[in-house]
């Protein structure tokens, strides 16, 4: 290996890092005061370069014993993360008037890119230590983003809570990784898998995997490690919340699926009804069941739409983990596919929530009244996003959920009752519950008259563009899921 080879494999990360540094420089020079547009242009250019580096870069490679991995799957997900970040960046600059961000646009963008850099590292590694470093980089940037645009006291409180929960989770993760290293003698996922397949399981290993699961549970906001999510989603500036709910969650599920299935497939255990066997599958099944029930039921009672989206996101973590329990190639495909479309729908929903927040100063259900008349584009996209989250055809959420549940059941032997049916039945029931609270929002949007004194919410150009792209993705993929499914399938074949 020489440095040229190394650089060619991490070119996307380098592009993002350099852009972030340039933006910090612009911030110091006061460049963002005059022109939010310049910041946006630099950000978009940097992301575009990184995307080009992903698309035209090397197709495969495994450097430094799995520290840097490039294959079809990592390239696909790096591209997804870059696209979602670009969408978030456009929301950061709602046509010049930057909410609480006056004069801090450059720093905000730089933080966004640093968080993205962390996620790119996470996606592109099979080394537990580098994975941890990437997660921490992303988390630190996100803590700052949450608190950065604080106009009043609340975001600081939310950020502090996020930070405390996050640091404890990070400690759990690191502690778990150290046990895993102790039990297997390696921090390379592939080596770990080989060791586990060849040798009897050390008693210390389950402890390590369990501790790591706590850390991961925090990352994807699974119950009971979800307590930070509602406050952060509600109090953070909308773009930051959108990023946490989309890109960060996509990367979270990517890494959970990869670590558990690739590294610890051997110690899966079983969560089948009547045939429980110890391993990580029963733990994940419990997390999934709790997340679905708590997330969806708590969402019923919310008045703030962003809080509602936070709880619905917790519920979705449960849906996604449901499939992960099956732990085969089909399940990983379903998990990755759903996490991507969840990211797209979340981004759109938070984008619209941000528009309403700017116009009305709050995001209670009543503040969405009349949106259908004053901002039809935003209202339409919000409807598409929420109905896709509810899992209704012809939107892609339907196929996504269907595939999740089909995958969860796919592990069973033909002719018998599928063992995970209990979990899938619970998921379908909770999915029906979720329709109720999504319809509550849409009822306000389309049928409630706007209060006469309220400032009307109007569509903004950049936000509308992102919304429309998200909306068309949701419809197009709903009609032709194979557009993403086939590349994903091909990428996964290399992995398994």
């Amino acid at each position, binding site marked *: 290996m020489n440095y040229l080879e190394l650089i060619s494999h991490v070119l996307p990360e380098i592009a993002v890092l350099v852009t972030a540094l340039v933006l910090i420089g612009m911030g110091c020079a006061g460049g963002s005061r005059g022109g939010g547009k310049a910041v946006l242009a630099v950000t978009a250019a940097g992301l575009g370069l990184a995307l080009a580096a992903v698309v035209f870069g090397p197709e495969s490679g495994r450097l430094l014993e799995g520290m840097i991995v490039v294959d079809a799957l990592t390239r696909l997900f790096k591209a997804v993360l870059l696209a979602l970040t670009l969408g978030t960046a456009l929301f950061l600059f709602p046509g010049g008037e930057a909410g609480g961000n006056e004069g801090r646009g450059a720093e905000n963008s730089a933080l966004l890119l640093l968080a993205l850099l962390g996620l790119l590292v996470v996606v592109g590694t099979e080394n537990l230590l580098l994975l941890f470093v990437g997660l921490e980089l992303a988390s630190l940037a996100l803590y700052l983003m949450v608190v950065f645009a604080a106009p009043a006291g609340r975001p600081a409180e939310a950020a502090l809570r996020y930070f405390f929960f996050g640091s404890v989770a990070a400690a759990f993760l690191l502690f778990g990784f150290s046990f895993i290293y102790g039990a297997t003698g390696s921090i390379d996922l592939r080596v770990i898998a080989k060791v586990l397949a060849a040798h009897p399981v050390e008693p210390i290993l389950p402890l390590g995997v369990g501790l790591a699961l706590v850390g991961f549970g925090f990352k994807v906001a699974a119950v009971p490690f979800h307590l930070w999510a509602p406050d952060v989603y509600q109090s953070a500036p909308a773009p930051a919340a959108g990023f946490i709910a989309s890109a960060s969650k996509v990367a979270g599920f990517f890494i959970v699926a990869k670590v558990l299935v690739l590294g610890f497939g051997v110690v899966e255990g079983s969560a089948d009804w009547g045939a429980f066997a110890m391993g990580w599958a029963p733990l994940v099944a419990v997390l999934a069941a709790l997340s679905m029930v708590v997330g969806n039921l708590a969402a019923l009672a919310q008045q703030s739409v962003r809080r509602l989206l936070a709880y619905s996101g917790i519920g979705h973590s449960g849906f996604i983990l449901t499939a992960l329990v099956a732990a085969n190639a089909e399940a990983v495909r379903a998990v990755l596919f759903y996490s991507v479309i969840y990211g797209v729908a979340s981004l759109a929903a938070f984008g619209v929530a941000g528009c309403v927040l700017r116009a009305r100063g709050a995001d209670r259900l009543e503040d969405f009244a009349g949106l259908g008349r004053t901002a039809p584009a935003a209202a339409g996209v919000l409807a598409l996003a929420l109905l896709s989250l509810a899992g209704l*055809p012809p939107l892609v959420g339907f*196929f996504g959920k*269907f595939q999740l*549940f*089909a995958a969860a059941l796919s592990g069973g032997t*033909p*002719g018998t009752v599928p063992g995970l049916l209990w979990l899938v039945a619970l998921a379908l029931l909770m999915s029906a519950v979720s329709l109720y609270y999504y*319809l509550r929002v849409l009822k306000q949007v389309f049928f409630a008259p706007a209060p006469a004194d309220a400032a009307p919410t109007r569509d903004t150009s950049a936000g509308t563009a992102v919304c429309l792209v998200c909306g068309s993705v949701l419809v197009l993929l709903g009609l032709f899921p*194979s557009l993403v499914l086939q590349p994903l399938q091909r990428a996964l074949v290399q992995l398994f």
Partner: protein
Amino acid sequence: MIAWTFLTALIGSALLFLLPARRAGLARRVALAAALAGCLPVAVAVWSFDFGAGAGAAGFQLEVQREWIPALGITFHLGVDGISLVLIVLTALVAVAGILFSWNVERAPRHFFALYLLIIAGAYGVFLSLDLFLFLVFYEIVIVPKYFLIAGWGSTNRSYAAMKLTLYSIVGSALVIIGILAARVASGLDTFGLLELAAASFAPGLQLWAFPVLFLGFAILAGIWPFHTWVPGGHVAAPTAASMLLAGVVMKLGAYGALRIAMPLFPEGLEAWRLIFASMAAVGIAWGAGAALAQRDLKFVIAYSSISHMGFVLLGILSLTSLGVAGGVLQMVSHGVIASLLFAVAGRMLHDRVHTRELAVLAGLGLRRALPFAAFVFVLASAASMGLPGFSGFIAEVLVLVGTWGAFPLLLLPAGIGVLLTVAFTLKALQQAFFSRAAGGRESADAGAQYEPISLPEIIGAVLLLAAALGIGLYPQPWIAPILEAMNSDLMRVLLP
């Protein structure tokens, strides 16, 4: 080719959503054009359908099969047999009539008709799909437009009724999804094709719980007692066109799913649960009719009568005799036509003019003189609904009763009570709405002058539906023959002893 049935509706719906606001006046014309365009492929399907194809073949004609989502073995597979043929004819008929009866929608007509066409598209798709995933897509497409139509354009207690109806539908679909996934996983096949899965054999233990889950999921949408409570509120709150579609077509989606998917997939489960579900259907016949007798709102009367009539459908298909099944399917068509007609009279002809549906109030208005055409249509529709000979209801219910006689003689008792009660509540409603002496002697020759006259679209729509009800009643053979033929196909043959 048959894909154009729902494609025209989907295209029409998309056009309406994108129609600029200042062209809103065009909306109903666009909708009518889309619905009529959807009739064309239906007509072609009837024309090119080979009625004498005979048994032995898979039983489906005019098939379309394309690769769609190969990763999960999902194909875009459509086909027509005798049962789906008569049901797409019904859909085409009700689709056109519903638009004619909502010609006067003033509030956001673009979105009204766009949502309306989405339901039509879903209905066509359900009746034509031979792939279970494709079926589910169409089956669930219907749910949200129903909610928006009722919550946005409805009347009495619309918000609550719309949510209740939607949640019942989504829970029903959840049960259906569980049943379908269980079938796919237990078969060990990498496909969602209905014909392939039905050919697989399932362990009796699985069938014993999978059948009731799947059947009940469908039967909730068909309004089976005691899961019928969403029907009255939802149908009453819905705007006229949506009531027509809900009662006329959407409830049939559930019955069709039960007959086409649940029963052939799990025949042994069916055998075990048949009596229980048939009893529920028979109780529903009597229950719906009895409840209708107690109503004071004309639309509630019709809504409860729907529950009673859909009981006949379920009883017929569960009888597992060729006559009973044919009667059940024919009753779907018959009730589709008659219920649409009744809702059209109650919602469009009466309520939009006199602004009340209270029978006690209507009785004082002397509507026989004021709105003679409405009275004429309602008399005929009531006669059809009671099952008078010469109308479609008669032949369908007789077939069901004959079939039931062979299968469960005891269940004829509640069914018979239901028939008697139907006569009672129909005559009562008819008498109160149109033929009671005006209380204060206000009945006069020019009473009609105060109401807007019956418009041409209404007349055309009423004539269309009446013609269908009479046509089936007087000459049922062309409708029964293809249904009976369809029961001989590989898929359906398992149902008959």
